[in-house]
């Protein structure tokens, strides 16, 4: 696995773990834990999306000249993911478990198909096109706060 693929795939798994904990906490009616876990998930997911949008995608687009291809599709799906984060935050504040779990289920499938596309196609492409620059791109992504 390339440097970018390895780093970003690992972060997908971390997001999945936090998501699963938040979802399980809501399902169990443990709202205090749900607040903590969901906040952690929300923060890491938003950070991950920004690492891609602010560092990885521009580097790939500059190198390949492709600005309306896969990265445009990924940006659109990022906006869909952010919309879910907002509605889940509201459901959590309202202590509305049915709404939270319904949004969570839809977000999970949306996220999984999004991640599959990135892990199977986009990240390997960025590893190949960015080539020897990949380690420095990973360093720049780590610096995003």
């Amino acid at each position, binding site marked *: 696995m390339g440097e970018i693929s390895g780093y970003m795939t690992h972060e997908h798994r971390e997001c999945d773990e936090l998501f699963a904990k938040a979802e399980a906490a809501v399902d169990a009616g443990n709202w205090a834990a749900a607040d903590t876990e969901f906040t952690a998930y929300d923060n890491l997911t938003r950070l991950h999306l920004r690492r891609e949008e602010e560092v990885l995608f521009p580097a790939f687009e500059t190198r390949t000249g492709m600005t309306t*291809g896969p990265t445009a599709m990924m940006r659109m799906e990022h906006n869909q993911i952010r919309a879910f984060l907002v509605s889940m935050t509201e459901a959590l504040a309202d202590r509305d478990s049915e709404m939270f779990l*319904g949004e969570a289920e839809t977000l999970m*499938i949306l996220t999984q198909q999004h991640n599959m596309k990135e892990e199977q196609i986009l990240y390997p492409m960025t590893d190949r096109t960015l080539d020897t620059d990949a380690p420095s791109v990973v360093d720049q992504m780590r610096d995003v706060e």
Partner: protein
Amino acid sequence: MESRRCRCRGGRQPNHQPLIPANADLHFDRMPPLWVPLRAFLIAPFLGLGGGLLLASAGDAAFSSRWTASLLASAHLITLGFITLVMIGAVIQVLPVVTGVPVPASNWVAPASQFGVALGVIAMAWGLNGGLPVAGRVGAVLLAAGLSLFVPAALIAAWKTRHNPTGRAMGLSILSLIAVAGLGVFLLAGHAGWVPLRRDLTDIHAAWALGGWVGLLVMGVSFQVVPLFQVTPSYPRVVEKYLPAVGFLALLAWTAGRLGRWALVANIGIVSLALSLGTYAAVTLWLQTQRRRKLRDITTDAWRLGMGCLGLVGLATIAATFGVLDLLEPRTSLTFGILLVMGFAVSVVQGMLYKIVPFLSWLHLQNVATHRGVVGQVKVKNMRQLLPVKGPRRQFASHLVAIGALLIAAWFGGFWVRIAGLAVAVDFGLLGIEVVGVVRRYREDEARILSAPQ
């Protein structure tokens, strides 16, 4: 759309891989209109319901052997009417989304082939069960016409995607469908009195249907939908790459051995087939133990049941090959068929529908909102609002009851056959109600989005 050719500067190409593969942009924008797969998903449960009612009306006589006309009619309403109809919808839906290659002319090929298969199986069941040769002939013609529209279109798409494990497995399963359909129409012509009835071909027909068409297609689809819908790790590369081909070659070897009366070749073929399907079931169950979500999930439950039954069927096949089990004994052969059709195939198809129907509906509602320009202003219904969890749970419980009742009926016969038939009818009827419910809620939400101020 942006060109998918490489326009990169200065990169090298390790192992001669293109920097930007041909399937670089994915593909939900290429999915067919919602009604193309959904029509099949809507009709199919009610054909399964018909199979249950037919069994209930035939009663004990249907289970006296695997050859009774009413059992054949009932079984085909489930295998062709439910499983194959949904699978055709799934191929037309999944191929373009996963691989970027749409099934050619799917907007008219899909409805024409689906109606051909649906009407054909009804006529065929009527012909077999009512002893009406003319209905059987009409059924044979409609089925042949319906499948001959679907098969070439799907094969073209599968050939273009042969480098993708899902596309390759789908291609092999569609090749299997040709064998199934050819043998099936020939057998039906035998029942209708056009040609001599060659019952010795029935096992070959059934093996290609359930091992080839259904088994390989489920494998190919699962490489995508198990990680996606059940949030598991991906299948190991070696499984994705080789297992469908091993299964297909094993079926070929077994068929050649059967037809040529080469017992050793036939035995090696059938054991290899059982091992490949059994390995697939074991790998899927192993992946499910690594699910990242903690919540109970009805799709995962249905697939666990399906894979458990597939594993049992694999073991039974191997036991029969080594003479430990007699699959010619009527009760054993009925048990084998029930586990394979209702336990494995119907369970995984139902499990898939619980996710694919609400997710596709959500995706299309999202598109409606995007085209209307009201994203962010109008909240689209989520999957649980489109399909509340209680319904599938109740339906899955009724599916377990149906399988249990069928197994009791296989061993004890009598009034249990009628009860089992009714249980099967309830099983599919509840599924139909759930799918209709999603469509109704989809339409309500679509109307709400379209009437929202822009």
